[in-house]
């Protein structure tokens, strides 16, 4: 039977390095994806994820299982991501205004040429790629806290209680935050939403 996150962390606290490796294996992908969607830079996301794991390791002596492990983990990740975004805000503004809109080779998706070679239906893939870009762009345009709330809610599937602790707000404030974020996404993605409605 797989050990729980809390048990693994208590084992790390007792000096078991193997348990830390298990936690790393369990959360490396969710963390890197969450941070990548927050900061929109793969290298930076990996650096931040490393920092999260390092902070978890450093705090092992003082660890007390008072809350869910994921709440603690994503709280560290969210704070690091928000700080990083604040630090890079002006730099990012310059890049987004100056840089031409191109396919982001860093985003882990396949490049168009590679896709075209693999799949004969290029037009379909161009459409899919445009849709993904639109969705990414809509998420990027959300205010940072709303973006974090949507990512934690949608992709990490954390419950409202956990997310509100991570973002340091009340549950009702979180529900309001999420509603506003989804409203913005609904407007930004209106053409795709309409298509979805027709398909549905």
């Amino acid at each position: 039977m797989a050990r729980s996150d809390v048990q693994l962390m208590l084992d790390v606290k007792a000096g078991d390095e193997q348990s830390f490796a298990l936690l790393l294996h369990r959360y490396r992908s969710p963390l890197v994806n969450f941070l990548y969607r927050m900061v929109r830079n793969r290298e930076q996301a990996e650096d931040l994820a490393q920092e999260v794991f390092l902070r978890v390791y450093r705090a092992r002596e003082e660890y007390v299982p008072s809350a869910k492990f994921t709440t603690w983990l994503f709280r560290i990740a969210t704070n690091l991501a928000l700080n990083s975004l604040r630090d890079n805000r002006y730099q990012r503004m310059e890049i987004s205004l100056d840089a031409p809109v191109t396919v982001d080779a860093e985003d882990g998706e396949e490049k168009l040429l590679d896709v075209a070679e693999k799949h004969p239906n290029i037009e379909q893939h161009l459409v899919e790629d445009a849709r993904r870009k639109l969705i990414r762009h809509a998420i990027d345009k959300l205010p940072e806290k709303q973006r974090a709330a949507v990512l934690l809610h949608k992709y990490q599937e954390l419950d409202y209680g956990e997310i509100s602790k991570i973002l340091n707000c009340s549950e009702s404030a979180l529900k309001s935050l999420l509603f506003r974020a989804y409203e913005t996404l609904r407007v930004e993605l209106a053409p795709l939403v309409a298509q979805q409605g027709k398909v549905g």
Partner: protein
Amino acid sequence: MSCSKMEGKILGFVDWRLKEGERLEMEKHLSTCAACQLRVNQFRAVNSLLDELPMIEPSPAFDIRVHARVAAEPVKQSWWAWFTPSPRVALLASMLLLGAVWVGYEATPPMPFGDPKEADLQMMQDMPVLEDHDVISSFEPLKDLPQPVQADEADQTNQTM
């Protein structure tokens, strides 16, 4: 339920996070409110669109980098560790102690009697003699008397005569 009250629960309804009672209440409202029904459908569409974003895989070197950074962390020592000597110091200290004990043992003069109790007893028995010797040796009138002639010297004087 009013439309404004719906706002806080619409997302929970879309992703099945509402309690059973709240869900039934919501369904009852939606059956009579076309605007809210439309909003629910649009939120469902947004939710579905968000699923289209692909996941990325961390780079192969990610774990190695984390382990390297963890290994580079300084080892924390508790304040108790300050009192714990290192094995080398402990060995050196114990050897010095053994050496000091050995040197001390070698430098001690041998006891006249094997048993210390026996030595004390003998000293107690000799005490009156020692006291007499002290009294006689420091008795002033005796110092004025001529020195006694030694037996050998007396014999020699007799033979020459």
